């Protein structure tokens, strides 16, 4: 189950750095990540971005090395207006992202279920669209009930 305290609906942000900073702060408040986490995610995003094209719907999955993480968790933002991220496979390409999943993964080898459930999420564009238009967190909880952290 995802932590609904880590969900922000209709976030207003101007840059991808804002999005990561705001979501990362939520994780930091819960002590899920270390003080170094936000800067590490931003540095990684600059060099190796995480924007993904899910059939003309754009999401981003910023994350970083597990040594900045205390406990695996996921923070989610739906964006009021799309924010520009760069594309994972082609960092020169800019995309207008509408949904951001900030990932903190402690040990990928131990988290097969989490990674598989995340993958399943990206395969389901309808679900992503519903998530994007969710009006309250209880909707998000229902939509993401299959995410196992």
């Amino acid at each position, binding site marked *: 189950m995802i932590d609904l305290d880590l969900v922000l609906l209709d976030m207003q942000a101007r840059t991808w750095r804002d999005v990561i900073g705001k979501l990362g702060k939520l994780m930091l408040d819960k002590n899920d990540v270390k003080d170094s986490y936000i800067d590490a995610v931003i540095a990684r995003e600059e060099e190796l*971005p*995480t924007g993904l094209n899910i059939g003309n719907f754009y999401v981003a999955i910023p994350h970083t*090395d597990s040594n900045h993480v205390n406990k695996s968790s996921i923070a989610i933002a739906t964006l009021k207006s799309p924010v520009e991220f760069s594309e*994972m496979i082609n960092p020169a390409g800019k995309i207008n992202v509408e949904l951001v999943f900030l*990932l903190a993964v402690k040990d*990928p*080898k131990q988290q097969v279920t989490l*990674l598989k459930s995340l993958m399943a999420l990206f395969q389901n564009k309808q679900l992503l669209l519903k998530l994007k238009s969710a009006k309250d967190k209880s909707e998000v909880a229902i939509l993401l009930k299959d995410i196992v952290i």
Partner: protein
Amino acid sequence: MKKRFKVLSVCGSGTVTSSMVALKLKDALDEKGISIAATEAKPTEALNLISGGGFDFIINTSPLIAGDYGVPIINAVGFLTGFGEEEFIENIMAVINEINNK
């Protein structure tokens, strides 16, 4: 016929995305009676690991650093997003068949 393949899975952090696509590929190939052993790596680690030898092919979701990898490289972003999944598996099977026909 070879049925076990060593795969280098490359993503930006060398952990999260590369593990996801490796897990998914493992499942997809299991159905075809093919097994893979995947090693996850960052782009900066890939060339070094490959030169250690033994890898059959590379799958990647972040760009690789330019260099001579000496094995087929298959873009796995479509596999990650599900948009381009069949094409990715076709590419993988073409590489596997080529290895087996050598």
